[in-house]
């Protein structure tokens, strides 16, 4: 009773038999094709990792990771702090892949990174041997309005808990304009040193953390590759790369100067206002037909 293939003795002449075989073939191919389309769509949707799910240390960039991770859970077993979870069928992360949620269970940044070498495929890159090189994500102070440091209150909890303290997060002193005499201690994260462990997010004292670890793709902007920052180029080069700018000359009316030092437009005191009462005169200056 199993399909058309292989069953003989139906009594039909050869021609209809072959036709039925071809029909079955087409039917199967179509069925499987439709299934594949559905699966493909499901895959492309499911492969978008939600922002709250952070990959273990050493994880390859997401696209490669999804090709490399066999979903074996050896990393999960390897983690002594039960930080990592394997995504279930209904979780947002692709089924079977390892992740952690910083706010509930951050990575404690083990010296020996036991989760990495057990990964059989290298989906967690074995080249990562110094946990400080890990870039699981990047902490971002996402809410300047809720973070109490921005209100001028002392907190610094995230700063103090950070295992890369003083490098991944620094406190920037800023003038407190509200009181006029105090300082704000603003937490600032530096991507060169933040490992994305999430300890700061877990520790943030707010109901909902103002500092969050985001996957790199969400946390980082990217400058157009043709961009060059003049002062960096200049420093690299040891001097200006172009002939120094000529002082810009403005076409200014009598009695008006422009100071490049910072004061800007200066109208000589005592001089009569160079501007006519009629603004059209100013706009039309230089266009007078009878000049």
């Amino acid at each position, binding site marked *: 009773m199993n399909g058309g293939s292989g069953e003989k003795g139906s009594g039909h002449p050869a021609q209809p038999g072959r036709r039925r075989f071809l029909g079955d073939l087409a039917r*199967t191919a179509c069925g499987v094709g439709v299934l594949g389309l559905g699966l493909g769509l499901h895959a492309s949707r499911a492969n978008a990792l939600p922002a709250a799910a952070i990959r273990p240390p050493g994880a390859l960039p997401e*696209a490669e990771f999804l090709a490399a991770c066999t*979903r074996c859970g050896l990393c999960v077993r390897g983690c002594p702090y039960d930080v990592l979870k394997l995504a279930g069928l209904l979780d947002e992360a692709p089924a079977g892949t390892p992740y952690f949620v910083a706010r509930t269970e951050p990575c404690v940044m083990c010296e020996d990174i036991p989760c990495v070498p057990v990964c059989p495929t290298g989906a967690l890159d074995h080249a990562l041997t110094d946990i400080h090189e890990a870039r699981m994500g990047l902490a971002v102070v996402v809410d300047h309005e809720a973070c109490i440091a921005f209100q001028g209150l002392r907190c610094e909890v995230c700063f103090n808990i950070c295992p890369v303290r003083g490098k991944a997060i620094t406190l920037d002193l800023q003038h407190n304009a509200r009181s006029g005499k105090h300082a704000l201690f603003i937490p600032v994260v530096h991507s060169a040193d933040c490992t994305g462990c999430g300890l700061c997010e877990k520790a943030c004292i707010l109901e909902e953390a103002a500092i969050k670890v985001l996957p790199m793709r969400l946390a980082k902007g990217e400058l157009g590759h043709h961009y060059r920052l003049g002062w960096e180029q200049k420093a690299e080069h040891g001097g200006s790369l172009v002939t120094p700018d000529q002082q810009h000359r403005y076409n200014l009316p009598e009695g008006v100067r422009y100071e490049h030092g910072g004061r800007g437009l200066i109208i000589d005191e005592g001089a009569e206002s160079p501007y006519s009462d009629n603004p059209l005169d100013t706009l039309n200056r230089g266009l007078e037909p009878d000049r």
Partner: protein
Amino acid sequence: MSGGGKTGLTATLNRGWWQTRKWLVLRRVSQLGILGLFLLGPLAGVRIIDGNLSSSLLLDTVPMTDPLLFLQMLVAGFLVPAGTAVLGAALVMGFYLLVGGRVFCSWVCPVNLVTDAAGWLRLRLDLHGGINLARSTRYWMLALVLLLALATGSLAYELVNPVSLLHRGIIFGLGSAAFVALALFLFDLFVARRGWCGHLCPMGAFYGLVGAVSPVRVRADQRAACDDCMECFVVCPEPQVIRPALKGAEAGRGPVILAGECTNCGRCIEVCPQEVFAFGLRYPNRERGQGSETRSSPGLSKGAAT
């Protein structure tokens, strides 16, 4: 053809309970034992084997990787996996090349417990009908799996693969995997006889291809003794593989079941009242009943009841 409940009755009367259930029991012990070994870690902290069927580490030294998964990985574009995965895939592949690919299906895969239960219940309840799927559909599924990996650059099939979902679910405690098992059970029970493992599962298809060349086989050396009771066809999850070996004498076919789809479960061996079947090797593919080969006749056959 005998009704569901009586299958194996004659054999049991002839040879007793154990001889007619030996391979079945050993198979269940193997399936549950392997699950148990995987569970020892998370449940009792005894680490004999870590991971799951996708990749695992035995005694902290022997790596194993599912070769189909490994293949998907390569197709998805991850061309330089760590040596562990390469070695692991080679070990597993080598093992199944030797003992028969679908030994994975009948002796290891946890889904087999589910689908066998459905198959058994279907016999018991004498359920018939359902949809007809071609047994070749699984090869289309296999092609689809690889195509998906190629197209998405990820192990897309692993999002839905019931085998790994279930195994992972049992070991890592992911509740929703139970629904996958239930769905497969109901599918096999009501929708298609032996529907999943016998017609659709791409892993089964892959291991079927692997097993097509492996030397360990079920042989029907005593096929002359067959009295057409059809019990083997009833118990076999892939009955189409039996006919060429059992009934192919006139057509000049040898007595060895050559089809890769045979799962080497051994049910036909023990259920046959005439003791036609036995485990053996692929060669020589001719009757061993005559000549000098009689004494080296392998496996269970203690001489057929001629």
